[in-house]
């Protein structure tokens, strides 16, 4: 019955917003923010400003893309920040030759990129396995690694800050291609691939079907368990990449801090971007815009001398307002 209601209300939503679509509100909010800054913030139009904002938002966007897919299946992933910490702790151990016994060099650097990401992906699959195989609620299943994951990263590094000088990671953090920071390229590729996968591939359709009505998807013969495990694995993989970007930017890895609170930033971006937490829908572009709105809001407040603490309060109000407006849009 609930499913029927959701389908019906979604149809209403579409009728209610014929032109802008569900993204209309998000685009409007972003436009207002941009316009305000154009008028009120000095030196706003510069590549410098653009890149500052983009590099600060990349890790959130990359993680939030995975979160969007997880949420689309009706799940949630609280472990993303801890998986970032694990990947971030592993990489310096590997390229310094302290973990795999391969001395510093190009090969160790390559391993330092891929092994942490694959490990994070494996942990993500573990989340998915708990959810799919044991039918443990996603919030509890991923809570396990939220708690234990950061501990694993801290145990690996004994809680110490690992500062490093590594040319490859330096490039990932600060390098540019065609004038654009590498991590921004990476973000663009992740967003593009995910948006394409959800719209154009069978996997994307199946993912939405599970979120819309899992029982029906199962009865229709979809491999629900496999898709669920895959979606959490993707979320883990993206968290791993984000963890590497964070340590590359800082040229150091602190297992206590890498990815701390990321799960909430990512969920906020998804919610502001218009993906309903109930599942069955995914808007990757919405999530990108949601993250940009939150980032630009913070930038605007900070550049006008509002302290970071107050910016938090405003962020809270914006998230509430965004969800409320979506709610009103869905109401009969």
């Amino acid at each position, binding site marked *: 019955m609930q499913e029927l209601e959701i389908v019906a209300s979604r149809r209403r939503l579409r009728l209610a917003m014929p032109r802008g679509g569900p993204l209309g509100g998000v685009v409007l909010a972003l436009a207002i923010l941009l316009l305000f800054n154009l008028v009120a913030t000095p030196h706003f139009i510069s590549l410098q400003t653009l890149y500052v904002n983009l590099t600060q938002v990349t890790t959130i966007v990359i993680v939030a893309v995975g979160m969007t897919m997880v949420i689309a299946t009706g799940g949630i992933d609280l472990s993303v920040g801890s998986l970032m910490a694990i990947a971030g702790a592993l990489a310096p151990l590997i390229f310094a030759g302290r973990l795999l016994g391969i001395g510093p060099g190009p090969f160790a650097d390559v391993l330092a990129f891929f092994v942490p990401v694959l490990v994070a992906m494996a942990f993500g699959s573990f989340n998915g396995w*708990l959810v799919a195989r044991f039918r443990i609620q996603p919030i509890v299943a991923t*809570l*396990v690694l939220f708690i234990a994951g950061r*501990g694993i990263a801290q145990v690996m590094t004994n809680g110490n800050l690992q500062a490093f000088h590594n040319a490859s990671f330096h490039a990932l953090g600060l390098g540019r291609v065609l004038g654009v920071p590498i991590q921004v390229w990476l973000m663009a590729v992740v967003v593009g691939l995910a948006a394409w996968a959800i719209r154009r591939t069978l996997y994307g359709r199946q993912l939405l079907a599970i979120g819309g009505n899992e029982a029906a998807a199962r009865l229709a013969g979809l491999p629900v368990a496999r898709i669920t495990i895959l979606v959490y694995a993707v979320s883990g993989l993206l968290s791993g990449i984000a963890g590497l970007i964070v340590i590359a930017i800082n040229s150091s890895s602190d297992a206590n801090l890498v990815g701390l609170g990321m799960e909430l930033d990512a969920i906020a971006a998804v919610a502001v971007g218009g993906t309903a937490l109930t599942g069955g829908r995914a808007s990757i572009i919405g999530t990108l815009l949601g993250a940009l709105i939150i980032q630009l809001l913070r930038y605007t407040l900070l550049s006008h001398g509002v302290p970071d603490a107050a910016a*938090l309060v405003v962020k809270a109000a914006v998230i509430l307002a965004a969800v409320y407006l979506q709610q009103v849009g869905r109401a009969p």
Partner: protein
Amino acid sequence: MTSAIDTISSGPRPRGNRHAALLQRQGVVLALVLLIVFGAVRYDDFLGLYNVMSVLRYNAMFALVALGMGFVIMTGGIDLSVGATAALASVVSAGLSDVGLGAGLAAGIAAGLGVGLVNGLAISRARLPAFVTTLATMLGARGLALLISGNQSVSVSWDTSFTDLGGGDFLGFPIPAWIAGVAFVLGSVLLNLTGFGRAVLAIGGNEEAARLMGLPVARVKLLVYVLTGGLAGLAGVILAAQFGAGQPTEGQGWELFAIAAVVVGGTLLTGGMGSVGFTLAGTLLLGLIFNILNFENGKGDFTLSAYWQSVIRGAFLLLVVLLQNRLARRPS
């Protein structure tokens, strides 16, 4: 979701299943007893007065937060804002502690009730999803705490009796433990012996049915979030009194710790079922892991860094969840 429905709709069960259900809920007590026996046998002063009292004193605030979280979860909701609320309350109460114990206590609880009221109104009246609402108020409360305190810890007054709330004893027991004990007795009475408690469980079991039965769903939900906010506020007061300062950055991750304690205590995250006493057992279980780790390091056979704490807690959560899952499935 399936297990909640199973529990409600399966009616009278065969004897074996009833044992299974009993074990599912009392598994936490069993684990707690085993852990205590283990500690008592292995370490000399484990059951010594000093250790017992300091464990009770230290875990009282977590217990209060978990008690509130238990009620919220029984209605099928969630409250992510409790940790930030406790931080806000600790700052507010520390600021007013020079007026006296009563003023500090009242201010802290009022701050908690305030956040709870915002949560409750947004969730019960505006029908916003609990997860996102409390995620936003978590940011808001944290921001307020940082704003009020100017990003610094606020030292409490030692001239008044305020610090007794954290460090004082009454009849040989720590005052925080008294407060938590009384709260749990009242909570248990509220849940088991009043119409409010039955309404809480009914709403968690099936909100639509509860509404059709004529239960004041919105009011009960509002009250539950206000209650949880108040308890988090009380926990914040104890935090300030115990550490001698209001801590605007403290309380991070408390919400997830509380959820873990509630889940370990056998309360289903889907709502409709739960127990106040087992939540207390769940809190003590998670708290004792830290205590035992300290003893183990003191014994010196081998050293486990404090970081193992979260790994072990996560493993415990996983174990309990898998066990509950096994037992819950046996009937079908």
